[in-house]
């Protein structure tokens, strides 16, 4: 039996118990003839099923979540040899022990003798834990069942109890949103604090040299291990600026055109087509940026360089050109954001009351004058809010920059050169074969914290502005 089997058994017994509760309610009604049931017989069934199922499931889930960690801790406590290992080696050894215990496959790293013993202990503890878990859950299910079953009688207010239980379940589901935010905060916070205890925060925030490779042995080339994140911040901002320079005018003007000029038929056909752009996965944009737009930008860069050499313009002649460029990434990201800005601006422009348009037209203004002098100023807070949300998206976008912008931490304003971003570095730092506690890995969490806080602030401001604006015209 495994976890899934037990879950299915639990679920089946809940269904069975439903019918038992229902039957008892019916029979009690018949035996105490004259007294009508307070609720429909089904509710007695539901109540029995819920009390059988929910507490057992809760204990079962929580136990399963923490089981493997606690068993590992107990195993380590048994072996002094394991306790003497450094954190990196310990996690390696633990991995090996787990694989050995579950599959019987052994990769001969570390101390084979200890690992085999430990694996035996591990699987022993794991079996104990599993048996205990099943036992406790089953007992709870039985207890819940007996408790409700014994109480069933016609005067019991089964429906009210069921409904109260359901509301609590709904509440717990609503609280998951808060749990998620807390989970994000805690998962980045602890590692970030540890990172800042190793690397001073001022170096991280103001240092201009990013080179996370740490020298494993002395005199290793190119492995200085410095964590100045300014080139990353710059790369992120630079690409976002390029993206917004494309997306903001295109999206805004397209939105104005569609809501103020286009006939409803044109609008109904164009808008869904443009929204396809929003539905294309970012990895597709990344592929397109890396393989099609990137080479085009590079060729354009070579052309510019040639022009620079011919006309003796020094700045062009010395242009650094590479296939991975911030321009390619920014261009494609900008096109990705267009439908986003389009639909947000469209919403706020439609929310401007018609009385304002009519008033402006009555005074003799042309349509474009109405747009620029009345509608856009009136809708400005909403438009700005939309732009802020778009910027937050550009900052957090990963795949396009990962595939098209490069990993070289250059501090450059040349759009033809490659830059790297916060998100790219998080991916490259966390996807390599890394020990979990190395400074390199911790740096990724610090970057994640920075990214989360930045986007959080942008989102809160933007959502607040948009909401205030909507209330103004409602």
């Amino acid at each position: 039996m495994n976890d899934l089997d037990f879950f299915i058994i639990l679920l089946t017994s809940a269904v069975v118990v439903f019918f038992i509760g229902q039957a008892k309610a019916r029979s009690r009604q018949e035996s105490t003839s004259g007294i009508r049931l307070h609720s429909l017989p089904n509710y007695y069934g539901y109540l029995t099923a819920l009390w059988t199922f929910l507490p057992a499931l809760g204990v079962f889930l929580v136990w399963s979540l923490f089981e493997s960690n606690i068993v590992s801790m107990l195993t380590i406590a048994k072996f002094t040899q394991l306790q003497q290992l450094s954190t990196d080696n310990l996690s390696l050894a633990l991995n090996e022990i787990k694989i050995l215990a579950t599959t019987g496959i052994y990769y001969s790293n570390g101390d084979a003798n200890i690992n085999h013993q430990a694996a035996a202990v591990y699987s022993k503890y794991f079996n104990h834990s599993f048996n205990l878990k099943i036992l406790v859950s089953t007992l709870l299910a039985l207890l819940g069942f007996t408790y409700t079953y014994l109480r069933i009688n016609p005067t019991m207010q089964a429906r009210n109890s069921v409904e109260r239980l359901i509301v609590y379940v709904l509440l717990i589901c609503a609280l998951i949103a808060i749990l998620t935010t807390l989970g994000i905060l805690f998962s980045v916070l602890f590692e970030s604090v540890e990172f800042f205890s190793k690397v001073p925060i001022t170096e991280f925030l103001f240092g201009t040299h990013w080179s996370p490779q740490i020298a494993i042995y002395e005199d290793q080339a190119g492995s200085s291990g410095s964590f100045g994140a300014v080139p990353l911040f710059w790369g992120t901002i630079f690409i976002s600026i390029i993206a917004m320079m494309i997306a903001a005018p295109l999206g805004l003007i397209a939105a104005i055109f569609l809501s103020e000029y286009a006939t409803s038929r044109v609008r109904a056909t164009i808008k869904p087509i443009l929204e396809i752009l929003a539905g294309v996965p970012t990895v597709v944009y990344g592929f397109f940026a890396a393989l099609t737009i990137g080479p085009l930008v590079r060729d354009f860069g070579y052309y510019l360089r040639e022009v620079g050499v011919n006309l003796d313009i020094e700045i062009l002649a010395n242009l650094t050109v590479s296939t991975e460029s911030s321009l390619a990434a920014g261009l494609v990201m900008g096109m990705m954001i267009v439908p986003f800005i389009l639909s947000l601006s469209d919403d706020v422009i439609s929310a401007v009351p018609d009385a304002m348009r009519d008033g402006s037209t009555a005074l003799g203004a042309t349509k474009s004058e109405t747009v620029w002098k009345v509608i856009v100023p009136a809708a400005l807070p909403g438009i700005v809010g939309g732009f802020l949300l778009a910027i937050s998206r550009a900052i957090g976008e990963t795949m396009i920059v990962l595939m098209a912008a490069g990993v070289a931490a250059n501090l450059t304003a040349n759009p033809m050169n490659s830059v790297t971003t916060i998100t790219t570095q998080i991916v490259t730092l966390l996807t390599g074969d890394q020990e979990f506690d190395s400074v390199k890995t911790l740096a990724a969490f610090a970057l994640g914290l920075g990214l989360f806080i930045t986007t959080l602030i942008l989102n809160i401001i933007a959502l607040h502005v948009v909401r205030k604006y909507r209330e103004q015209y409602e």
Partner: protein
Amino acid sequence: MNNTQIVQKSLKKRYAKERRFKIYGVFSIIVSLAFLLFLLVDIVLKSTPAFTQTYIKLDIDFSYKVLNIDPKPNYTKDELFKSSYRNLISKALYQLFPDVSSRKQKRALRKLISSGAQYHLRDLVIERPQLIGTSQSVWVLADDDIDTFFKGLIDRNLPEADRRIKDIQITWIDKLQSKDRIKRQFNASFLTSGDSREPEQAGILGALKGSLYTMLVTLLLSFPIGVAAAVYLEEFAPKNNWWIDVIEVNINNLAAVPSIVFGILGLAVYINLFGVPRSAPLAGGLVLSLMTLPTIIIATRAAIKSVPPSIREAALGLGASKIQVITHHVLPLAMPGILTGSIIGMAQALGESAPLLMIGMVAFVADIPQGFFDPSTVLPVQIYIWSDSPERAFIALTSAAIIVLLIFLFLMNLLAVLLRNKFETKW
């Protein structure tokens, strides 16, 4: 000059400005549409080579000697499994080109054929053991470089050092072609095999199955929880309560948090704290369901809000309890909207790749996953992995995988639109 004259004088300029603005509007729409068209056409064009594969006809002599087995009436599967089938191909090739003698040339000759061809022969022999001892013409898969060249994607006029295929190999290919021993055929293995380092053997079935399992987990978690949370916030939450406001701000925020941050959460909490297996669809589904939750909650709330209060009041007036009003009336009426929102949320999750990179789904997995705990990858991540591979043939494979992904997304969105059109009630 009176006011009317001033206005009339400026009219021409103002009308020109108006026309200009209209042109800007048309221009920005055309630019966006052109970009979309360029993107799609580019990917379709890039993908065409992936739909066919090159095969070479070899006269394979399934002799006992080369296979290294003794003649007998029956063979166990294990015996046949262990034999070396690579030599069959080499032998056939040397026979076809008897003038090849040097080691280097022989190696170049063997490289015409895909390294997967021997397994094809093995399966053939296991399926029909009576082949042993006979000589047969068999179409075997060509190597990806040969395939790319045969499709005309490698220029034969380039200097030899600049292309992945040698001059002598080109003469062999020409010879094969003149003997009708080389052909292109529909690439069925693209849809039926798992990932491989060799482009000609790589397929998307593993990624498709991984996506399927991941989406199942996502759906099973995010749909019930999302709908339940939305019902609570819309129907039961006390109004003007500060902690309900906190939940709402939270949900709106989570909808805008970068997806990669969810990946970090998955790595730190699910994998490192709770010990969920790395690279497994379970871990991927858990991460994606957190991302999809806000979308489903927001869509469900909107759908519940649009159910008119008169329905609630009528049901309450007839003596239904609040839960009965919701389960018997509000939710069924809101269901089209809820489903539409959920399908759109699932489509987003299907295209998501960044958070899955964090939890190890980027690892190379050749086996096709069989459950929620097997290491696997998903379609978008497969696209990322392939796009990073140096072989030219992977570009076409990546584009083809993108087309498959886009078709799935298109179907999901179509389903959402159809649902909305069919069941949407205007009150």
